[in-house]
């Protein structure tokens, strides 16, 4: 589903955000990218999503070569993917409902379908009652959950989540990760970037450890819905 070959990314000439990344993420995988602040986790996710272009290397997502900067393909990819941004990226003058619905409107679904799906997504993140509020009046955690709802509302084939629980308490974090797991079990590849090592107790199928833009190791779990987690 996602393949990266010798990918490099430098934002500035002095500094390299990512170096020689090679990885492969399959359908239905549940992947964590961990690493300290500034390691390049967000950059890695953005590359897979076409929000940034690699300096070098090849990125193939869902069969498309998105590293080549062919602008027209990227919207199509994004409509089949979901992304929880670290800074949420909600439209401040639109309501929660409208923000979430946007991800479906760009696909061109009809109003009724949109309503049904948005309600469902908001219900999953526990925000049905805040539907008509604008993001600015929401608490940090509530905003983050709106971002999550928008990312899952279009039944994405790939779900990227950048620090999706940074503003959420333990209980809601558990809920959200459970939700992601369910989505993953339907065949969606879920890629979560986080600094929060306690999330590891949620058993990813693959764990990518980053540090200063370099992959420290990729751990593949053989765990299958049991309780043990065995890094390879």
């Amino acid at each position, binding site marked *: 589903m996602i393949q990266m070959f010798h990918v490099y990314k430098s934002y500035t000439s002095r500094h390299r955000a990512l170096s020689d990344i090679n990885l492969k993420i399959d359908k239905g995988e549940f992947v964590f990218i961990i690493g300290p602040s500034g390691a390049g986790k967000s950059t890695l996710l953005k590359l897979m999503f*076409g*929000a940034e272009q690699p300096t070098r290397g090849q990125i193939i997502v869902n069969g498309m070569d998105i590293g080549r*900067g062919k*602008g027209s393909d*990227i*919207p*199509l*990819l*994004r*409509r*089949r*993917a979901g*992304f929880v*941004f670290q800074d949420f*990226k*909600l*439209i*401040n*003058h*639109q309501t929660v409902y409208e923000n979430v619905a*946007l*991800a479906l*409107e*760009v*696909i*061109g679904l*009809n109003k009724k379908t949109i309503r049904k799906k948005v309600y469902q997504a908001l219900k999953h993140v526990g925000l049905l009652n805040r539907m008509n509020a604008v993001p600015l009046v929401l608490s940090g955690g509530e905003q983050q959950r709106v971002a999550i709802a*928008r990312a899952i509302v279009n039944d994405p084939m790939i779900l990227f989540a950048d620090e999706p629980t940074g503003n959420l308490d333990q209980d809601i974090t558990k809920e959200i990760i459970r939700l992601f797991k369910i989505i993953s079990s339907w065949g969606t590849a879920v890629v979560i970037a986080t600094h929060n090592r306690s999330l590891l107790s949620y058993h990813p199928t693959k764990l990518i450890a980053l540090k200063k833009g370099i992959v420290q190791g990729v751990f593949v779990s053989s765990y299958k819905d049991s309780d043990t987690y065995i890094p390879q």
Partner: protein
Amino acid sequence: MIIRQLLYFIKKAIQNIRVFFVINLVTIGIISLSLIVLSTFLMISLNLEHCLDKWKSQINVTAYLKEAVTPEELTLVKQKITDFHEVKKISFVSREEALSLLKDTFPGQSGVFEELKDNPLPASIEIQLKEEYNNPQTIKNFAVKVEKISAVDEIEYGRIWIKGYAAFFNFVKSAIVAVGAVILLATVFIISNTIKLTVYARKEEIEIMKLVGASNFFIRTPFFIEGIFQGLLGAFVALLALYAGYHVFTNWMAHSSFLPLQFMQISFLPLKYVILIGVGGMVTGFLGSFFSLGRYLKI
């Protein structure tokens, strides 16, 4: 499907106008004020041009006739002159009419003329040329031809004045065009850049829409509709204000104590210009959005 999509975009545009109500108000205000200035100028200069044209059409060539012209000869001369293709209209001024005209021109000195033994003034034919021949060269050529008619004594056409007139006419015209071009440019620049500022205030929204997979078409269209709407409404307000001003002004003129003003005809902008301003507002609004957005639509 297409209609549903269009409706969706219109809905979005309306929603945006509601959310950014103050900004929209400001934008529409700026647009309509620019257009008021433009259309006021347009109206004034069209009327001025109309005046000048009227004046132009009044320039005559006068053919003074020999003293001993018989009525038969006169008819012939009239016929001959009318037959020239340059001629639009002629009118005959008899010797008596010429004298009374002269007396009217000098009301204080009527005594002067009473002393004259007999009327020394000749009869004349005033010739009005067709517009297209109202220029120094053709008038001169025409005069030469008329002078050859035997009954014609002398030709009078104010050589300097005609040359000067054309220059003056051109002068006023080019002044109008120059000032008009400045105003037009200013208007277009102001409108499109105002829209640029409003788009700038919303660049994050555009970025987010791109990130959820919106095509450029999807992002642009509501902005276009908004821009077109702003331009159209701005033009509408401007024309309304212009009409109100026109109404007040002509009313005031009709009750003016200055007689010539009472008969002066000021006309409102012709329909085609009204439409032009409306369409121009729309197009500028559209282009303003179009060029402002470009920058933010790159991935």
